[in-house]
């Protein structure tokens, strides 16, 4: 039963990874920008959540009303700047890494390098859990998984079923032809950058529900989030959701069967195996030849 428990807990935590990975995946897959500053936006989302909850003393979910629009604007501005400066796939790594360092420093200046956490008396998800027989599902992780399913599932539908979403996918494949059908890459980049920013706001809030935050956390997210992005397939949100859940479940399993120290090794070994077997991404629909 313990095994089932850790797999489930891990899978729910995987929802958080998926939330963090969503923005990275779409900007990389569609706009060809590897935006490391996205981790800075998540960090900012987390601190803003902390700040607003502390001041207003409200349910953390309520703070999304402010953080989501704020980070949408930031994400859109960032993408607009990348576009203006003609940042492409490779130099985006360097530029956005620089930006991330600045963002982390700013966070450190404002909120110090000490741990911060949501006041326990206000955070309704902190200690409670849902019990299903012997299985315990902590509320904070349930919320992470729920938000991930809503956000990535919704994003996937938007990309698949709407004219704008189709435009984004077409743009990812062939910019010139897409432009000849009326797809304005400036507008689309800003819109997508904004959406990625908004998702960072949600991810930051989700992170705060069950974790302490400190500025250097942004670096710690790299490994697992990139693993999820690659496994899911660039720009594939449904794949990212499944990848997040799988990585989370695998981490939980390895943690209890062996040791938490082996989790990174197991996750990255799994990624290497997965990419050898399915180089196009594990959850990508195979392109028939």
């Amino acid at each position: 039963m313990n095994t089932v428990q850790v797999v489930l807990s891990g899978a729910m935590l995987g929802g958080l990874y998926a939330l963090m990975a969503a923005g990275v995946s779409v900007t990389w897959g569609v706009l060809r920008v590897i935006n490391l500053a996205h981790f800075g936006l998540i960090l900012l989302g987390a601190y803003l959540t902390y700040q607003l909850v502390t001041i207003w003393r409200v349910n953390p979910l309520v703070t999304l009303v402010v953080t989501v629009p704020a980070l949408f604007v930031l994400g859109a501005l960032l993408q607009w700047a990348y576009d203006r400066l003609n940042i492409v796939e490779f130099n985006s790594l360097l530029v956005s890494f620089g930006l991330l360092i600045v963002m982390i420093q700013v966070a450190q200046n404002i909120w110090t390098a000490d741990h911060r956490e949501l006041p326990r008396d206000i955070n309704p998800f902190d200690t409670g859990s849902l019990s299903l027989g012997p299985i315990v599902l902590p509320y904070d992780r349930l919320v992470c998984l729920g938000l991930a399913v809503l956000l990535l599932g919704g994003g996937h539908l938007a990309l698949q079923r709407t004219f704008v979403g189709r435009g984004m996918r077409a743009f990812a494949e062939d910019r010139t032809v897409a432009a000849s059908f009326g797809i304005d890459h400036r507008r689309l980049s800003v819109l997508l950058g904004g959406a990625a920013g908004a998702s960072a706001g949600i991810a930051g809030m989700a992170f705060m529900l069950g974790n302490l935050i400190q500025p250097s956390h942004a670096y710690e997210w790299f490994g697992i989030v990139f693993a999820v992005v690659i496994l899911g397939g660039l720009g594939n949100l449904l794949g990212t959701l499944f990848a997040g859940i799988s990585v989370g479940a695998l981490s939980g399993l390895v943690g209890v069967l062996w040791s938490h120290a082996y989790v990174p090794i197991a996750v990255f070994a799994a990624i290497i195996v997965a990419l050898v077997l399915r180089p196009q991404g594990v959850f990508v629909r195979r392109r028939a030849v």
Partner: protein
Amino acid sequence: MLEVRGVQARYGDAQALWGVDLDVAAGEMVCIVGPNGAGKTTLVKTIAGLHAAAAGSVRMDGVELTAVPGHKVCDYGVATVPEGRRVFGHMTVRDNLLLGAYRRAARRVYRETEEEVYRLFPRLRERQGQLAGSLSGGEQQMLAIGRALMARPRLLLLDEPSLGLAPVIVDEVFDALAAVTRTGMGVLVVEQDVQRALEACGRGYLLIEGRIVTAGTTEALRSTDEVRQRVLGM
């Protein structure tokens, strides 16, 4: 409808077009023939707004297109079937078609247009849910044409539609083009298969080294020395 006057185009220092004049009226199918490297593709791209003209004017029903950004040209009724088809291989056939109807005016009537495209190319209806990358070359060409038609253009530009296709399929493609021409659309086709182009079109232009050398009805073109020597090889 389409008036091209004195259009020049360059790639860096290399000049590809040296003052091209050309017209296409509604309901006519016109071809541009010429040897490789004559500037045919550049001409199509310049009209479509995908390559900036260095000089001259491209007008669509009197509107100057050279001043319009590339992604807005489709709003003036121009749709392109690019060389090599360039369908979106990772998207389904239907998504490719709907993408064609991206511009607002086309979006409003996409269901009707989609039906028309399926009537023109019944095979696309059968393949709706397949990824475009899995289609045969001929089907991809039909899809590229269907996608362009989804934009509800008044002028359809095609760059080498017969390239790499079996003759039976080429027949099918040209029959479809004749059908859309009858609906009043203007069609401008760049074609390597000169015989085919001259048979299918009413008028034609011979483009050599970036200049229009001869123009006229296709019967007249067929008998001129330049066409016989330079492109028909007779």
